[in-house]
């Protein structure tokens, strides 16, 4: 078990080395379930998925099924989706609307606010053996939301969401708070299962731009990436705070590629909504990929969905949910500004689904890499040799960067990966990693 692994020895930030064991070892998996996922804030749902009282979705938090439900009082809560009587999975649909939640096994019924309302054959219990006020649904220990993104946390000790996100909020605002209405989901999440360790996905989504011309060489061959393989090496790698990291990358020097390529009709309101340093960053960049520690990643990119369509932006958030040492369930949402036109909604949807998600002409090749990396790193011999994360570590941070955190010039480099793994190590080895 966990005590057989010296977690601290698995990541060497100074040397830029990471042990292969972090991607395959069952003991590491158990240690991160306990030290990380049962303590860190995890994304559950977006408010636009449960807009009406009674609306619910079922999600996962640290491997437990959680019901996110909009109460009659307007409050969105999150509960373990498990009846207090026998533990039955209370609500058995991915989504729906309910005025009350009745357990399919023996009929214990709960309000959308989580109170136990009625019990079958209640007259057969005496008061000593049934106190309904003590038998409400088990609450997710902390629930809070940021700009419509609802997070949950199983630990009382973990700092509040605002503090946990910290300076990452500055960058999240550029993505999800750049118009007065903010963003909303387009459709349900795409879900699929990958035989990889979840950290290969986050490793990629800490801002790995240097995989583009090999992993996505087919796209370059089709002429859908700039011909110069260093064309996307500019911009910055950013550690917003602790393990929250991202990159920002400029597009070609044309107005269409400013503000991530968002529709011209939205730009006046974006300029008005963002602060000066946020505006400067948004204006100068076309791409941003990053991760809210530990496993909520985002991508704001401009792509051609096919050979004839113009470059079109999309914004996707995804959870890489570990389901075992070498298996991951991916949840990927597409977001759009509430103010967006029907025409733009169609364009951004098509750009996304043609390039990302399991059928996307980009992402299908990513998963090929992540699965094969995971398989190769299982070997005891392979595990004797560390993996290399040493690119561009000599580059100092830019003291004049307009945003918070540390920003290293250039988007080809492994700084943000090491920031992520360093934070990962702290959560697995420290009593109070946030201190």
């Amino acid at each position: 078990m966990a005590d057989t692994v010296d977690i601290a020895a698995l990541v060497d930030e100074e040397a830029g080395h990471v042990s292969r064991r972090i991607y395959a070892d069952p003991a590491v998996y158990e240690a991160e379930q306990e030290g990380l996922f049962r303590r860190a804030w995890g994304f559950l749902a977006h408010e636009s998925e449960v807009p009406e009282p009674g609306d619910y979705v079922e999600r996962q938090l640290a491997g437990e099924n959680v019901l996110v439900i909009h109460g009659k009082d307007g409050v969105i809560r999150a509960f373990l989706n498990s009846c207090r009587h026998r533990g039955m999975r209370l609500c058995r649909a991915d989504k729906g609307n309910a005025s009350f939640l009745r357990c399919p096994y023996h009929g214990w019924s709960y309000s959308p606010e989580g109170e136990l309302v009625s019990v079958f054959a209640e007259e057969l219990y005496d008061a000593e053996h049934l106190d309904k006020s003590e038998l409400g649904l088990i609450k997710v220990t902390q629930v809070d939301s940021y700009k419509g993104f609802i997070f949950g946390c199983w630990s009382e000790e973990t700092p509040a969401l605002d503090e946990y996100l910290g300076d990452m909020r500055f960058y999240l605002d550029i993505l999800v708070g750049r118009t007065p209405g903010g963003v909303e989901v387009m459709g349900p999440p795409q879900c699929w299962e990958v035989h990889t360790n979840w950290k290969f996905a986050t490793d990629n989504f800490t801002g790995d731009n240097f995989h583009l011309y090999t992993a996505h060489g087919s796209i370059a061959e089709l002429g859908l990436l700039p011909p110069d393989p260093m064309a996307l090496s500019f911009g910055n790698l950013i550690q917003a705070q602790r393990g929250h990291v991202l990159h920002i990358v400029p597009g070609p020097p044309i107005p269409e590629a400013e503000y991530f390529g968002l529709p011209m009709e939205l730009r006046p309101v974006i300029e008005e909504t963002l602060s000066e340093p946020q505006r400067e960053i948004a204006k100068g960049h076309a791409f941003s990929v990053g991760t809210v520690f530990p496993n909520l990643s985002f991508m704001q990119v401009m792509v051609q969905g096919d050979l004839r369509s113009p470059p079109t932006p999309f914004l996707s958030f995804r959870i890489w949910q570990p389901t075992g040492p070498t298996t991951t369930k991916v949840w990927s949402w597409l977001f759009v500004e509430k103010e967006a036109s029907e025409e733009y909604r169609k364009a951004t949807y098509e750009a996304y689904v043609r390039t990302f998600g399991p059928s996307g002409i980009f992402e299908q090749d990513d998963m090929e890499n992540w699965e094969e990396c995971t398989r190769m790193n299982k070997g005891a011999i392979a595990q004797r040799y560390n993996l290399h994360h040493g690119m561009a570590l000599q580059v100092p941070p830019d003291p004049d960067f307009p945003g918070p955190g540390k920003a290293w010039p250039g988007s080809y480099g492994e700084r943000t990966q090491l920031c992520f793994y360093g934070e990962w190590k702290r959560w697995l080895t420290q009593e109070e990693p946030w201190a």
Partner: protein
Amino acid sequence: MSMQPVPVGSADYNAVLEWLYREAALLDSGEFEAWFALLAPDIAYEMPTRQSVYQKDGDGYQEDFGFYAENHSSLETRVKRLGTEQAWAEQPGSRTRHFVSNLLLQKDGEGAFHATTSFMVTRIRSDLPYDLFTGERRDVLRPDGGGYLLARRTILFDQTVLKSYNLSIFL
């Protein structure tokens, strides 16, 4: 639109069935450019996502959101991509078997055939276990010369969570 059922075993039925078999053979033998030639220029090729919902809430398909939202140009892009040497999801390629059955056929007032079939596609990559893709296809086939062009394909997939790590094949 008035729809006429096309009886099982009729000449039209057999011709459409044979077209579906030949299409499957092209996909299974990796002849993607020949497959692409069977597509109408205005094709809509879609695969909605599905969620598990109570029966009162319908069948769980999301009409406007899916795993595929393709037109002629994007399918051409996918076929050309498969012809590159760096499409790693298909290098080396998948081995697939497209089983197409349970054909029910109707003809509309403009002479196009509306074919509903069940499909089961097996896929093996490398030495990995079988991937299994099952569902229903709703196709519209438009007569063209002596054959047909595929004008619409809606893939109603049975899984809510795709149990395969990618969808690098055509269904």
